[in-house]
């Protein structure tokens, strides 16, 4: 799942898709944690997943706000257009 998310992140140019693939990657990581926790019969894996969840929520909200801003400025959502920090 993680590698699927990674692939998608690298391929898609639409910003929304980028964020979605990020979510996929985060989810996959959390899945790994939960599996590990269940393997060792501890609740720690779930705790970590909880944190990941909280982080993902915060990140998504900020990210989407940024998406809105960018859409307003650049009249589009092409990630490659955001290359102002080019050296």
């Amino acid at each position, binding site marked *: 799942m993680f590698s699927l998310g990674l692939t998608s*992140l*690298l391929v898609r*140019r639409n910003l929304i898709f*980028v964020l979605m693939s990020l979510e996929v990657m985060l989810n996959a990581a959390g899945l790994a944690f939960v599996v590990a926790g269940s393997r060792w019969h501890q609740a720690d894996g779930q705790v970590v997943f909880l944190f990941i969840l909280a982080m993902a929520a915060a990140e998504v909200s900020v990210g989407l706000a940024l998406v809105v801003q960018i859409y307003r400025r650049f009249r589009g959502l092409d990630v*490659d257009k*955001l290359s102002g*920090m080019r*050296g």
Partner: protein
Amino acid sequence: MNSWLWLIPALPFASALMLALLGSRLSRTAATALGVGSIGLSALITMVVAVDFFTAPPSAGSYTEVLWTWIRVGGFEPQIGLYLDTLSLVMVLVVTFVGFLIHIYSAEFMIEDEGYSRFFGYMNLFVASMITLLLANNLLLLYLGWEGVGLCSYLLIGFWYRDPANGRAARKAFIVTRVGDTALSVGLFLMFTHLGTLHIQDLMQRASEHWPSGSTYAVVAALLLLGGAVGKSAQLPLQVWLPDAMAGPTPVSALLHAATMVTAGVYLIARTHVLFALAPSAQFAVAVVGAVTLLLAGFSALTQHDIKRVLAYSTMSQIGYMFLALGVGAWQAAMFHFVTHAFFKALLFLGAGVIINALHDEHSIFRMGGLRKEMPVAFWTFLIAGCSLAGLPFITAGFFSKDLIIWDAWSAPQGNPVLWLAGTAGALLTSLYTFRMIFRVFFGPLGTPVTKRPGYAMTIPLLVLAFLSIVGGYLKQPLLSALNSVLPPTVEAHAGGLTEGRSEVIAASLFLIGLYFAYLFHLQKRSLAEALVANPVGDVLHQWWFADWGFDWIYDKAFVHPFIWAAEINKRDFVDAFYTGVARFTELSYRGLSRTETGRVRWYAAAMAAGSVLFIAMVFFK
């Protein structure tokens, strides 16, 4: 009194330092007081020391004062030590006294120059270095003074630095004397390696013990010292710098390039006379160098039209006489000639400076004329000096000293008739070019009009030096006997058909012949002079001698062009490749790395992914 010896070089040093540091803030009066006053004090102290020395001569004929030990490495311990005997005393007296007169002269000569205090700083530094050279008790300290005077010569020749020609002349002087200096230092290395010391008296003693007469080491060492002397004293083959050195201010020419610096070579050879006595072939080389140079310079002086260049070649020629004397073993004669030459040559230069100044920077003798009535003081002093130079019998000092040398060239143990002939031919040439100069400058119709008259500061030194040029001849006996304690006396080895008297008569008659011909060509029928030059043979000779016998051209082709060619083709050598390679590598990596900064998120993510793949592979699968 003798313990005041160290003040003689120290006062000019201190004054030079103060002028260097504070010069721009000092008023003209203050700078003059500092510059001229320090030399005046030195001269005074020298005279006091001299009186003390002669009335109560120290035992062993010399007095040493060691100030401190300079270096202490292994067995090598040169000191800052001052050694006073008759030889160095005589030379220091001349240097400080004539130097003092020239400083007074310069106070007026350079009054309008903006580099006034800089000038006096350099001059004082020069006098200090020269005295260090003369009073040094070991060859390393002498070499320090040697380098110091070379430096000051460079600084003073190129004094008016805004004109690039002056800079070139200064560089030429420095580089040519450098060749000589290198020979000198190699000689010092050789002597130290084989004899273990550079202290002059010890060195001379050990040399006579360890090196038999005529041994290779002695000859080589003596020849190397001769190389150094030749460079500094502008003799063959390193004489090319002296005529161009006239680009400097006239007091500089008077002090450095007439009276003092160029005689440093003479002093060196006289100081190390034991070594030269051990190497007869080297000593003969000294004589040959002197003889050839005096003739060469004499011919060249006949063709020059810049008054200072005539005097430069004349200096070269007279120092050739001194070398000739040293070469035949007539040590005292050489020193005597040095003393008289300092007087009249400095006077000639100062007089030339007065004329040049008065005629608003006119240097060519062919554009001067008729100054006899306009500038009487200059005329009479110049005339006295010229007669002394050419050797007017009995009433001028130059006659006595030059004839002594010519006679010794015949009669001394190492003398021979050829050298005597060279000396007498040189006397004819001297008379010719001197009176050519005098007739052209002072007689005949008025050339460039006089715009400025010299003041007291410029005339009084002229008068003093003129007096000395006449009276100096009577110093012969006292001087020679005084020097006997240091330098071996010259014995008359073979007379063979000539006596001293007859030699003098021949010299005097040559003086008159030269005077007559100069009168004929340069005053009475000047058209004859032009006809001589227009003649094809005369023209060729004239051009050749004018260009210093082609030495400049030879050196240019033989040394300068190959060197420049080698430097040109070596502009990009492989050593440079290292440095440019580093720069280019940095630039390439900059270009490469900046391509990764695309600003695109996906690119960065891909890079991160690739990196993590690599990292995992490296860490877990190694």
